[in-house]
């Protein structure tokens, strides 16, 4: 933006893509850039709330978190990290070719970004499906059948004691809840077909007890009358999986929104909207995409890898 006098001179000239409230492209581009970064700041705080929840519970129940984490498949998690990194590279290149005004390369890299984004979500879907089949989606109401057929499904028995137990005082208190409530519908066909994951495997807690590094919260949280209580341990593992699903779910939601943005961007790029003079939308979408990538960079070690050293490190304690 030169002086204001200049801006007045070409008052009638409007660059393509320039909105009426701005004087020139520089001002518009700067506004978009600051606005996008402000948006990213609020995204940081949005995920930050979840990270705070993670931090609090991890510091309270590290062993339960390790037990839950060890059941996640680090292969899929790692693969997804790589997929997302590649998509970030293609996105960065898409922005670069938009800056250079090269339409074809721009389109190609946007498409590649979308493909990798979709692969990420596909892997996520595989993981979620696996978790669902193993019955570790920690939602009350799911896995209800397991309670009724507990004798035939020994693997899923422990899992259901709380969710399916109608003696739970919280259940009876909630019979009057007026919102849609899965408890009231009665029959559920979900169950734990493989039963591979034993929620109440509290061996890590026992290990920590022997090693003498249980936290204060764990000493209260896992034990009843000085005895290790597998059911109480299970509740804490459930908290881990709850946090896992909320965090990765919100991340996946952001990926889906990102793919929607990409689709719009692809259409615009295809139409040749962007040029070396006007490419803000590509750049802003790129910022968003990289941000979502950064969230995953933190989620991967914090969710998938936090307890591996207990498995591989031998009896260090």
């Amino acid at each position, binding site marked *: 933006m030169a002086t204001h006098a200049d801006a007045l001179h070409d008052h009638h000239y409007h660059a393509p893509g320039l909105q009426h409230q701005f004087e020139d492209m520089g001002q518009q581009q700067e506004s978009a850039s*600051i606005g996008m970064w*402000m948006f990213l700041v609020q995204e940081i*705080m949005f995920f930050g709330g979840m990270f705070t929840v993670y931090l609090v519970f991890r510091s309270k129940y590290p062993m339960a978190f390790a037990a839950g984490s060890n059941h996640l498949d680090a292969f899929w998690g790692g693969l997804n990290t790589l997929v997302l990194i590649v998509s970030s590279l293609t996105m960065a290149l898409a922005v670069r070719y938009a800056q250079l005004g090269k339409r074809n390369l721009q389109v190609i890299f946007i498409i590649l970004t979308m493909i990798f984004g979709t692969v990420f979500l596909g892997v996520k879907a595989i993981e979620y499906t696996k978790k669902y089949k193993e019955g570790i989606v920690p939602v009350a*109401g799911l896995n209800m059948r397991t309670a009724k057929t507990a004798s035939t499904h020994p693997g899923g028995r422990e899992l259901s004691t709380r969710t399916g137990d109608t003696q739970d005082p919280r259940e009876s208190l*909630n019979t009057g809840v*007026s919102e849609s409530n899965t408890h009231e519908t009665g029959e559920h066909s979900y169950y734990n077909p493989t039963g591979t994951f034993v929620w109440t495997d509290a061996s890590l807690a026992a290990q920590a007890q022997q090693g003498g590094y249980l936290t204060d919260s764990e000493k209260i949280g896992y034990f009843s009358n000085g005895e290790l209580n597998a059911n109480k341990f299970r509740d804490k593992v459930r908290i881990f999986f709850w946090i896992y699903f909320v965090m990765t779910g919100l991340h996946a939601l952001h990926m889906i929104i990102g793919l929607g943005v990409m689709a719009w961007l692809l259409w615009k790029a295809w139409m040749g909207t962007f040029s070396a003079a006007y490419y803000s939308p590509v750049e802003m979408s790129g910022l968003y995409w990289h941000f979502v990538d950064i969230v995953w960079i933190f989620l991967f070690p914090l969710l998938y890898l936090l307890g591996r050293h207990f498995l591989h490190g031998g009896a260090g304690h």
Partner: protein
Amino acid sequence: MQNVDAINVGNIKEEPRVNYLTNGFTLKSWLLTKDHKRIAILYLVTVSAFFALGGAYASLIRLELLTPASDLLQSQTYNKVFTHHGIIMVFFFLIPSIPAILGNFLIPIMIGAKDLAFPRINLLSWYFYMAGGALTLYALLRGGVDTGWTFYTPYSTTFSNGYVMAVGLGIFINGFSSILTGLNFIVTVHTMRAPGMTWFRLPLFVWSHYATSLVMILGTPVIAITILLMALERLARIGIFDPAIGGDPILFQHLFWFYSHPAVYIMILPGFGVISELISNFSRKKIFGYEFIAFSSIAIAVFGFLVWGHHMFVSGQSIYAGLVFSFLTMVVAIPSAIKVFNWAATLYKGQISYDTPMLYALFFIGLFLIGGLTGLFLGAMGLVVHLTDTYFVVAHFHYVMVGGQVLAYLGGLHYWWSKITGKMYSEFWSKIAAIIVFVGFNLTFFPQFILGYLGMPRRYASYPDEFQVLNIFSTAGASILAIGLILPLIYLTYSIFFGAKAPANPWMLPGLEWRTASPPPTENFEETPIVTWEAYEFGEESGLDLEDARNRNKVLV
């Protein structure tokens, strides 16, 4: 000095052929408008409706408390009524009121821009507000919630039989409105200022909105995720907020207050901005300590994030954390005090005219002082053990929120009414109303300080007989306050249709908003203004003739 001339001729200058109000009359031209001024009007209408609804709930509360027994409302219903009052007033009136109405209307004009940086996002934020409001209203009408506006867990997640999720979702959606408004303001102030409008020439109204926007962007997403977690927790019943199985209800309070304490600064900071404008302009004097007031707004926004634990002194939070939060609470009082001192110093030897907006501003200073100082009582860790969850708390935050924010809002609305509508309201009736509001307000809430100190707990429909006299005072005051709030509705509406036509600059003031027509044209200024003067410049050379202004004022009154 072309700009000075522009002021002097402001009143005789030819009116723009089309102003923002006459630029289109169809419903579509309003509902799909991208003009920040029209969006501000949309907010004005809807926020006022929510204010009326919240006020209706308040009247129910006061009526119930007229007698010691729980007779008008059952306890269950009473719980819902005060919850609805809180939710509507906090999320749908106090937070959007000044920023979304006055800020939206004035910030682009005050900095000499054609519009906000993102007009479409501005409209979108109004639709978010409407969607969140509609969902919340639906939930309230279907039966509502009884958790209190704070939604404390595990009651809200486990035991409450209400539409917690629907209301939570409504607030969640409404949060986006707040975030987008804040984002828009920040970008606008950074990039849209007119030539010559440097940071330290910005009106303090803009500075305070900048600080408010920071809080909106940094705080609101946290309440969004918190409410989302609460809703999901209610759906799935994992127990992360349920102490029975190792969850942590205090974590909810941490997350909730991380936003909701800074949110009280979202509510009061814009009020500070309005008051700075009013005090300086109606004293016809450059504001004392401009930089101090500007930076104290930013300081409040920053320190406001460090004190949330003072809502949790008796919750089971560690004593060490309580001490830190208590200390920082005392610290955050400093920037607020700086403002009050600077306002007082501005009044000193000023040529004060007691127009209606100024009356509100003066009332504000007194009431905010009481509200702020009683806040120090509540920030003291020892004293709070006695005062927590009593009417002392209720009186404290009503002194800040109603005595502070609502009075600032009313003062600002009167002050810029001529600019917004192009019509003058009745000075007589507005002064009467301002005085009625002041009297009614004090009669309502001052007895509550005493009640709280005597130990009357909040949030109960019934109370021991000995508290009745003070409660009758309070209810009587509320009736007077209601009259004071209904009056402006009548005479302001009347003025739209029958009021005298407002000149561009009825008080001969130097701000940019007074250098364009009333109501302004859609593009705000005929041509982009070039700012060559400091903020609040009332000197000889400014060309703002005081005598002339007073005469003009006499004519207007």
